């Protein structure tokens, strides 16, 4: 590497700073947009995958007039006897609309003396057993998102739930919990199952739905068919059904971004076309001078190559850095709403940091070599013409 040529390339960039800054702006913006979009997508995919992984193999929902209704608890025992079923749990849960903040909380009932249907709830039960064993008044453990919203509305220590039958339940907040997937746990309120029954007016002999654990993946479809046969008034939802539904929504939202990305790429290729279609008179004259004073074609191409590398690497680094800052520090304002929906019915959640090196490599390959080629080709065209002709 000839450092003198590198120095000359740097000086050359400084000389046409306005023009170069315009190129850096467009280039960085494209990289920023690509990496931001793909990073948000990767982060949400990871969130969804964690959510899907935590799902039971099957969920049994009783239907009435096309809508989900309460399911008799006794069916849990029948389901547990089906060969292939490891365990069946009746769940008591529902959505509670908190009108002050215009959000929905997912209120989940737990029996703090029994094993829960989710491993992570068992951890929480264990963590707070010192308090839950002794407390006699209504209590709850909330996700971080719920805690934040309650605090914003001055409910630091307790919250008054309004029962569906009227009246209120003053519920003490005994703690918070978090999880790797903020999307899944952020809006959760855990409280004793009896309290949830009272809040939503769910009788003892009914539950919201029943989850079914089937350890052998090959058995899932068989169990699903048996359940459908046993309970024709029920909808049996499998993990793969939910996964497909998530994926459909995700793919649809990704399609919206495609339009945005196509526009960005068009801008980039206009820039590339502009560069490849010709050099300015000043550029041509300079190449002529360099050749006239004894530079060879490869020397000219070397500095143009270095210029291309300096601009494209700097723009790539700038765009990538800004994208990571925008997505993971600022939490991708505006763009994230396109993916997640602008709904405020769910408490806010943090995008999980996912650094996908393949993605960076892909964006690099799509932009940097193309730009470098666009810098070199017109310079090469000018450099192979007689210097005398180029200078005229």
């Amino acid at each position, binding site marked *: 590497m*000839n*450092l*003198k*040529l590198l*120095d*000359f390339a740097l*000086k050359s960039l400084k*000389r046409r700073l306005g023009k170069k800054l315009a190129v850096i702006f467009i280039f960085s913006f494209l990289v920023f947009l690509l990496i931001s979009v793909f990073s948000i997508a990767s982060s949400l995919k990871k969130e969804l995958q964690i959510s899907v992984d935590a799902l039971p193999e099957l969920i049994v929902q009783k239907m009435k007039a096309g809508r989900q209704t309460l399911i008799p608890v006794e069916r849990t025992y029948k389901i547990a006897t089906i060969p292939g079923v490891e365990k069946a749990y009746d769940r008591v849960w529902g959505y509670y609309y908190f009108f002050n903040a215009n959000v929905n909380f997912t209120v989940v009932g737990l029996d703090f003396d029994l094993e829960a249907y989710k491993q992570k709830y068992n951890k929480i039960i264990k963590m707070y057993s010192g308090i839950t064993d002794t407390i006699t008044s209504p209590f709850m453990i909330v996700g971080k998102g719920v805690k934040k919203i309650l605090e914003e509305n001055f409910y630091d220590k307790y919250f008054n739930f309004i029962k569906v039958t009227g009246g209120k339940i003053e519920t003490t907040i005994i703690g918070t919990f978090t999880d790797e997937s903020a999307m899944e746990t952020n809006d959760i309120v855990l409280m004793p199952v009896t309290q949830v029954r009272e809040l939503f007016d769910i009788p003892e002999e009914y539950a919201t739905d029943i989850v079914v654990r089937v350890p052998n993946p090959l058995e899932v479809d068989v169990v699903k068919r048996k359940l459908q046969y046993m309970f024709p008034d029920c909808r049996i939802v499998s993990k793969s059904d939910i996964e497909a539904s998530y994926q459909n929504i995700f793919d649809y939202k990704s399609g919206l971004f495609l339009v945005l990305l196509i526009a960005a790429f068009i801008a980039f290729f206009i820039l590339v076309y502009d560069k490849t279609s010709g050099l300015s008179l000043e550029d041509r*004259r*300079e190449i*002529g*001078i*360099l*050749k*006239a*004073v*004894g*530079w*060879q*074609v490869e*020397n000219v191409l*070397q500095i143009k190559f270095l210029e291309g590398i300096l601009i494209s690497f700097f723009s790539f680094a700038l765009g990538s850095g800004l994208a990571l800052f925008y997505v993971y520090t600022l939490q991708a304002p505006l763009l994230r709403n396109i993916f997640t929906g602008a709904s405020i019915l769910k408490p806010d959640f943090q995008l999980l940091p996912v650094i996908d090196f393949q993605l960076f490599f892909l964006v690099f390959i799509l932009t940097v070599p193309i730009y470098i080629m666009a810098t070199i080709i017109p310079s090469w065209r000018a450099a*192979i013409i*007689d*210097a*005398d*002709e180029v*200078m005229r």
Partner: protein
Amino acid sequence: MIELKNINKIYNIGQPDESHVLKDITFSVKKNNFTILRGPSGSGKSTILSIVAGLIKPTSGEVIVDGKSIAKLPDKFAANLRSEKIGFIFQKFNLIHDLSAIDNIIIPLLPSKLHKSEIIERSENIMTELSISDKKDLLVKKLSGGEQQRVAIARALINKPKIILADEPTANLDKKLSLAFLEIIKQLKEKGLTILLASHDPIFDNLECIDNIVDIQLGEIK
């Protein structure tokens, strides 16, 4: 040192605008000689200099520079010839206006293997000789015409050439600056350089230091 034999240059051969700018040009310049190519504008003087520098190739004929035939020399070798043996002073100086004086001067040596400190030292010495050392960090566009020309001369000398080619070097200078340029050229000749200068400026008439004058009109030697 420089020998041209039956040089012809025809532009746009076979086209309606074909022009025969040089016709059977034959002359030679001996080592350490100062030769003037004299003739009106458009007579072909600049084209001869470009051919001697290997910037363009003649349509026919032979050019020998320092013992080497360069008429059909590939571009790469022509560039080597310029960087090793020739210093070219252009009519419009052909400087890069938004670089400093010293950055312009060192350009010919940037692709070389010389260390940058050596290049800087060499350029500072030349600038001192040409009395422009106080201008070294100024942008060329901020220099006067005479100063720009000295920068162009310094750039032509930085690679320690054996031959200096100068194309209408006084065309953009007033009489005082033209005389100052003459002094520089005389000094270069005293140092043993071979000089081929194209000009129609009468200042070069009847100078003692000139060894040879080649008169050209409409592409032919008269």
